[in-house]
């Protein structure tokens, strides 16, 4: 009987431990620095994301105070609680790093569950490079995506156009373990647009996982 009780106690402990590994919300501070041909930009603030609400909320404090709410297909910009701009986008939340990290999909950037097919895997030095190809019907519009991993962590992404020209490169650096969740605290973006290279670096800090409270931010109301 004593053995049986011990077994129940141990299994209860184990189940509470596995429950603690369920990550559902993430928040923190960020700063985005960028430069295009002649001008710079610095954007700072806090971010909030909860898997249940599926809204990425950015609360900016520099250069001005405003809120950005990214929902499934729309981006809302709010200034002083008034809608300033509404822009359409596609699957923004699904490919936000917050969604990918909480769902443990950052290592393959969610490509495994996307329309892309894995074409090739190769080992080059300390990197494993995966080549993801768009479906045949979309090859006239979309190019391949190359994904590299170092130590089984996402290291870089290269987006190509249909002719194989580089559109964008992204590098994920300085991973930190926050309560068991791996988070890249530095992301470098190199975007090639209209013959111009745009350099952007995003840094994250004060990252909190499964933080209680702040419902008003995690579930910020989206304007009609």
């Amino acid at each position, binding site marked *: 009987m004593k053995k049986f009780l011990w077994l129940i106690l141990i299994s209860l402990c184990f189940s509470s431990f596995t429950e603690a590994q369920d990550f559902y919300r993430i928040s923190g501070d960020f700063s985005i620095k960028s430069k295009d041909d*002649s001008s710079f930009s610095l954007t700072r603030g806090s971010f909030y994301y909860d898997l249940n609400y599926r809204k990425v909320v*950015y609360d900016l404090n*520099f250069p001005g105070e405003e809120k950005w709410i990214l929902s499934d297909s729309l981006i809302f910009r709010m200034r002083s609680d008034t809608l300033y701009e509404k822009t359409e986008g596609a699957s923004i939340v699904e490919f936000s790093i917050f969604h990918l990290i909480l769902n443990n999909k950052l290592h393959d950037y969610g490509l495994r569950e996307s329309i892309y097919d894995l074409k090739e895997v190769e080992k080059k030095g300390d990197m494993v490079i995966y080549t993801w190809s768009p479906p045949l019907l979309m090859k006239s519009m979309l190019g391949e995506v190359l994904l590299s991993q170092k130590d089984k962590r996402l290291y870089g992404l290269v987006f190509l156009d249909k002719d194989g020209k580089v559109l964008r490169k992204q590098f994920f650096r300085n991973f930190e373990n926050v309560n068991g969740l791996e988070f890249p605290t530095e992301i470098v973006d190199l975007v090639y647009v209209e013959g111009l290279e745009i350099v952007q670096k995003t840094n994250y800090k004060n990252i909190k996982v499964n933080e209680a409270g702040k419902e008003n931010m995690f579930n910020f109301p989206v304007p009609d």
Partner: protein
Amino acid sequence: MKRFLSLAFLISAFAVNDLKADNSDLFNFEIDEVNTELAQVEELDQYLDQNENVSFADLQAAGSPMVENVSDQAMMSPAMAKRHRVLGIPSWIWGCVFGVAGVAIVYFVSENKDETKEALWGCVGASVVGIILYFAVFAAAASTAATTI
């Protein structure tokens, strides 16, 4: 013959490897170069870490060199940098060349208030120049007529 086939196989294998070498080259990048490019905003970022309540307007009013060539607009994604331009043409040109119709095109296509404002300024600028030119031509014509009489 066997030797020749083996050699051909080896050469082709090397050729394939050479082609694939390009893929790993795509992942070469120097963080120091990125940091050098962003040095000015890096300094501003560090300054704001120490002085959290300082706004962009405060720094601009004080004539801080840290905000020289720094946009007063938030930018979350590099794709935004050129996103709002209709057909890649600066919005003020739309307003300047096509007037109210150009402003309307920018308003409906870009759905961005800043771009619309820029188009409106282009429209107003073109109208002011038009009025000045009209009066200049009118005055010139009047003075020519007066001289003739």
